[in-house]
């Protein structure tokens, strides 16, 4: 009883702050929430999969108790925790939802030799597929938490006491590991080593993708490193697409659907993720005026495409011009320079391309509410 009370008060504390982490992207299109909440009704129950087993465990309540100590510090774990609580209330756990919709759209197993019984299905989804959806969310959240580990040597005294950061790191590592360990035991319980292989490789992909996102030791590296769109797509697939693509494929494997169905499900997950990332990369360039102070990554799609269009030489020149006397980057100025060229519209075209590829890949599944929901989600990524 006291534990629950404590957890609630922790949640209260965390919610007081401003939220700045979203589960799926940095910005969501306006009708996104509607598409999602319509889709959730189709799969049977609200998509707060993060299993109760996990949330109510002694381990996480221990963390919740300790995270309270971090209130008032600058440790990123605090924001992650806030985002997590916000999002589990607003049902934005997209990956799990897509896995469930895909499972339902593909329907019961056609393989008569398999020992799957369609009576076991709830709302047209096998229990193992529901577990998989939950595992996908566990892995995603584990990495949200692990991303928030800070490098202690880069921490200066003016940022606050080092002790708080050490403690925050400890909590972040432990809770991320806890979620991953639960994912591992969940995968083992599926008793399907193909699925274990797929999801493990997705974890490896995710690590590599996040590793690419980390600043290199040379600060200027990201500016000089010649990232073209091929590299961009490879890296973005690793960090944002592999988990969803492989989870969708694994959902097909669990229902013993054939290789073709597995490939299509994978394609849907891949193109949806890429489309979604392009959409979120575009956001800083879509608003006019109000968000002038907003920074953006120089590795984001519109910048990379811009750079590819105008060439390396002109790009360096533009970068020089956008720097203020204090060698600080004037992002508002850089943004308007980029908006003058074709990088932004090329990004929109690319986003539409991935959206249509995602739509195309599910056309072989029979028409159903679940398939329409997947179509709506794929279409929604082109709302800029």
């Amino acid at each position, binding site marked *: 009883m006291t534990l629950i009370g404590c957890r609630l008060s922790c949640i209260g504390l965390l919610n007081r702050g401003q939220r700045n982490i979203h589960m799926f992207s940095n910005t969501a299109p306006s009708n996104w929430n509607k598409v999602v909440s319509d889709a959730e009704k189709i799969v049977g129950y609200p998509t707060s999969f993060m299993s109760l087993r996990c949330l109510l465990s*002694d*381990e996480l309540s*221990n963390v919740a108790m*300790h995270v309270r100590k971090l209130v008032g510090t600058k440790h990123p774990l605090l924001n992650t925790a806030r985002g997590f609580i916000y999002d589990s209330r607003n049902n934005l756990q997209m990956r799990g939802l897509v896995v469930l919709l895909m499972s339902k759209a593909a329907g019961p197993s056609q393989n008569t030799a398999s020992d799957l019984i369609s009576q076991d299905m709830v709302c047209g989804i096998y229990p193992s597929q529901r577990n998989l959806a939950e595992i996908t969310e566990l892995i995603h959240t584990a*990495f949200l938490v*692990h*991303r928030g*580990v*800070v*490098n*202690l*040597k*880069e921490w200066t005294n003016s940022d606050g006491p080092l002790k708080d950061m*050490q403690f925050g*790191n*400890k909590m972040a*590592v*432990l809770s*991320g*590991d*806890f979620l*991953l*360990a*639960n994912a*591992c*035991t969940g*995968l*083992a*319980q599926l*008793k399907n*080593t*193909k699925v*274990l*292989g797929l999801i*493990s*490789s997705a*974890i*490896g992909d995710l*690590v*590599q993708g*996040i*590793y*690419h996102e*980390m600043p290199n030791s040379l600060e200027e590296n990201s500016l000089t490193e010649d990232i073209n769109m091929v590299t961009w797509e490879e890296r973005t697939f690793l960090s944002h697409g592999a988990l969803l693509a492989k989870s969708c494929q694994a959902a097909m494997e669990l229902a013993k659907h054939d290789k073709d169905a597995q490939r299509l499900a994978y394609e849907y997950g891949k193109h949806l993720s890429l489309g979604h990332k392009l959409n979120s990369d575009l956001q800083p360039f879509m608003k006019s005026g109000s968000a002038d102070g907003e920074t953006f990554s120089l590795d984001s799609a519109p910048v990379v495409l811009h750079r590819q269009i105008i060439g390396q030489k002109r790009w360096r020149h533009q970068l020089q011009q956008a720097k203020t006397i204090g060698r600080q980057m004037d992002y508002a100025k850089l943004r308007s320079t980029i908006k003058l060229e074709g990088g932004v519209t090329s990004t929109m075209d690319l986003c539409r391309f991935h959206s249509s590829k995602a739509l195309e890949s599910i056309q072989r599944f029979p028409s159903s509410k679940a398939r329409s929901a997947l179509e709506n989600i794929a279409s929604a990524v082109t709302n800029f």
Partner: protein
Amino acid sequence: MNMAIQWRYCRKWFTGTRNLLEALDFFNGRFIKFSVYFNRGTGPVPGFGKMGLSSKYLFTSYLHSSILTRHKSRLPYLRFSPVCSNRIHSDAKLQDPFFLAQKDLNNFYDDIRKELFVSKSELNSLCDYYFDGTGKAFRPMVAVLMGRACNIHNNKSGDLLPDQRSVAMISEMIHTASLVHDDVIDGSDRRRGKSTINDVWGEQKAILAGDFILSVASMALARIGNDSVVSVLSQVIDDLVRGEFMQLGSKEKEDERFKHYLEKTFKKTASLIANTCKAVSFLGSIDPDVHEIAYQYGRNVGIAFQLVDDVLDFTSCASQLGKPSATDLRLGLATGPVLFACQQFPELDAMIMRRFSSRGDVDLAWQYVLESDGVDQTNFLAQRYCQEAIRQVSLLHPSPERDALIRLTEMVLTRDK
């Protein structure tokens, strides 16, 4: 190549220790008051059952007093009780575990590095960092010996199966991934005589490297394609994390504290060894009794291994262990020697509760432990676990590998690093 040097080195310390031990046949026995609390979660403390659980007085032996004062060099050592030693403990028949395991562990770390290969070169060097062949390779050694012992027990053909070797690799990868994360959690900057990954590349990348090693281990596990093997090895991952969580809290009541400590020890150290043994036995035999023997051997050796590790934290000087001693106290952890010492010196109780956080706590606690019987009691407990491990593995058909596993328990007790 590196590993060959390591083998030679290990063998050297092993033979050296044995000679010393043979000279130590003189013991003083006496009664001391201590209570051992039994741990339901990880099974009873072996060997104590016969003496009656209700008895709080247990017989223990002391080393010759001249040895007692030399805490830092060698562990106090007791001869095993004659349960098995008469039959299999004669030196001529014993096999050298390092020699026997070597043929299966050729290129072991090269093969792990091949598994871990990624195109991104920096991530590669982080992942390879601890697979340089300078580790003790204790876990892989237990795994391959147990694999062969089970195979011989089952079908008389002793060759290690490729999948059993994979289990040994996976086990070492899981172990290393957890070390990488532990070093971030504890803020350590040294391990195995070199800087830790977090010290060189920062905490963010260290965590990712640990996660990556785990994912590769998990992929290798999937390739074995055996659901039972998957199940026991993922249990290890779960236990490791739960064990780490257990270290966060301290229990108020003394008896709870000991139980908590043994359970934590099982989860953080013994589970990996026990379940690795079980996994190789799954692949070598279909007999559930064999699986249980393998598991119990690993569990008991694993707990003994950690108990000795906790002793070494007090008795070993910094250079030997590759990390500064009394590390556990500095981290606020009360291990076996402290918990035993607390029964003689109740002053330690308050320090344990505040996790040695006040000024001077660490030094004072250290003094108390060395003045108490804590170190000897912990060693004694480790011996009991090893005896149980020997009893278990002796149930397998005789083989050089089985005898090597028996001999390995001695090495666990006498290691000084």
